[in-house]
């Protein structure tokens, strides 16, 4: 009996958007992809919708990232001029730089550690994460502990590095 997708949608949609956002780093795109994942779920009617959605979303984000990288190469040629950001408020800048620091810190994680961390943060259980990543269930705790430690360390190191650079 497939899970009731409407219920899964209600409980999982936001988590799925968050998960995708941390991969594509574009809120609009993340929403698009999340909605497409649900639309596909409507068609495929997977047995375990939640896990399935995250697998599909991870695949879509990976393909999307490849394409985005191609497009960026073109764009960098056009946007050599630095953008004027003075209009943004300090607060917005602060939020943005925090986000950028976390993004940079996540980038320093190994792909496997990052995936496990993001899936956990999206509300998946160890069981579901194991099924999705192919790791043994017993290895999830270890992977998570390592991922969390590295994330915090990388974030603090990045912050310290900025202060040194400024001072």
């Amino acid at each position, binding site marked *: 009996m497939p899970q*009731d*997708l*409407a*219920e899964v*949608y*209600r409980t999982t*949609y*936001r988590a799925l*958007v*968050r998960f995708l*956002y*941390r991969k594509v780093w574009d*809120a609009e795109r*993340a*929403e*698009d*992809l999340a*909605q*497409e994942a*649900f*639309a*596909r779920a*409507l*068609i495929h*009617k997977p047995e375990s919708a939640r896990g399935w959605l995250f697998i599909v979303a991870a695949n*879509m984000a990976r*393909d*999307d990232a490849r*394409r985005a990288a191609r497009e960026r190469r073109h764009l960098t040629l056009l946007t050599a001029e630095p953008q004027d950001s003075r209009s943004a408020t300090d607060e917005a800048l602060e*939020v943005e730089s*925090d*986000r950028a*620091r*976390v*993004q940079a*810190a*996540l980038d320093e994680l190994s792909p496997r550690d990052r995936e496990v*961390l*993001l899936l*956990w*943060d999206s509300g998946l*259980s*160890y069981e579901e994460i194991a099924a999705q990543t192919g790791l043994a269930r*017993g*290895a*999830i*705790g*270890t*992977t*998570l*502990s*390592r*991922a*969390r*430690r590295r*994330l*915090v360390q990388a*974030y603090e190191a990045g912050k310290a590095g900025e202060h040194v650079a400024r001072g």
Partner: protein
Amino acid sequence: MSHVDDGTLHAYLDGELAPAEAQGVGAHIAQCPACRARVEEERALITRAGELLALAAPPERELPPFRAGDVRPLKRLWWQVRLPLAWAATVVLALGIGSYLGSGSRAVTDRSVAEPLADRSRELVAADTPARLMPYRTAAEPRVAKRAAAPPATPAPAPIPQRVADAVVPRADTATARAYVETGAESEARVSERNRLEDVRDLWKTESAISIDSARRVLGTDPLVVPGVPIEAIYRGRHIGYSAVVIVEQALDSSTMIQVINARSAPLALGEVVVTGAPAPASRADSTGALERAGGARAQVASSLGAKPNARLMFEETRNRPLRRVGNLEIHISGPLPSDSLQRLLRLVQPVKP
């Protein structure tokens, strides 16, 4: 019991240990000060990691509706939608392979279509309405001038359109092609064409005529048009499922108008998938087939995530209507031409030149 390793500790704190194991860990922590201290450290680490991830979250938005409050019919409809879609996927696959195998010869046909078409529109513009505005000049402009200077070939409508019709409809469908050729002469046909134009405008809820610059703003990119064919008007439209619609009307000749519909997809609202229901498999095969046959578009669709799922194509009006996807734009062409010809025109569209 020996000290608890990091992994077990995190699993313990995450509430992911089996009850018996969790009990063992709890007992050990109770009598081991070193592990108790570590529990606090790891708990703080978990909290901190969670906080950092929260910093990297997209802005909270309202949950888009998922057929609010009506779940039971949804289930039933899934069932109805599922089979035709599976069907269509098979057909599309088959068509995809077919068009791939056939693509070599088609490239040649393409050129022969593009040239006479563009030539013809220039001839007609130069010959019968010299004063007509041609605001969107193409690189081929000088050639138009030359033609106009030379005594224009008698603008006998019959032979030239016949040539075009031959090129546009290379095989099959000659009856339809002839019908098209005759539209120039018969006012009755013109009336029905006007009705058809209005149908299209109605379908896309055309609002007002806009400038090319507004069209660019609305779409966020250059609208696509058939190059070398004068633009008569640009309209803005609306349609469910699209965040922006721009309709460009182009005069193929003095009596034949086509519409190039540039539609940017909005994020798919799930309600639409469910509500619309599935059309007959045959018609779906047709519209997706057109998509597949649109040269170049095939590869894009395959590689593009932006390509919405099949359900996206289920709008009734895409039946039998050529469709091409360029970037995040869906391009449709309508006009009083056989669908073969429309498909060929569809392959010629390019971003409008400034």
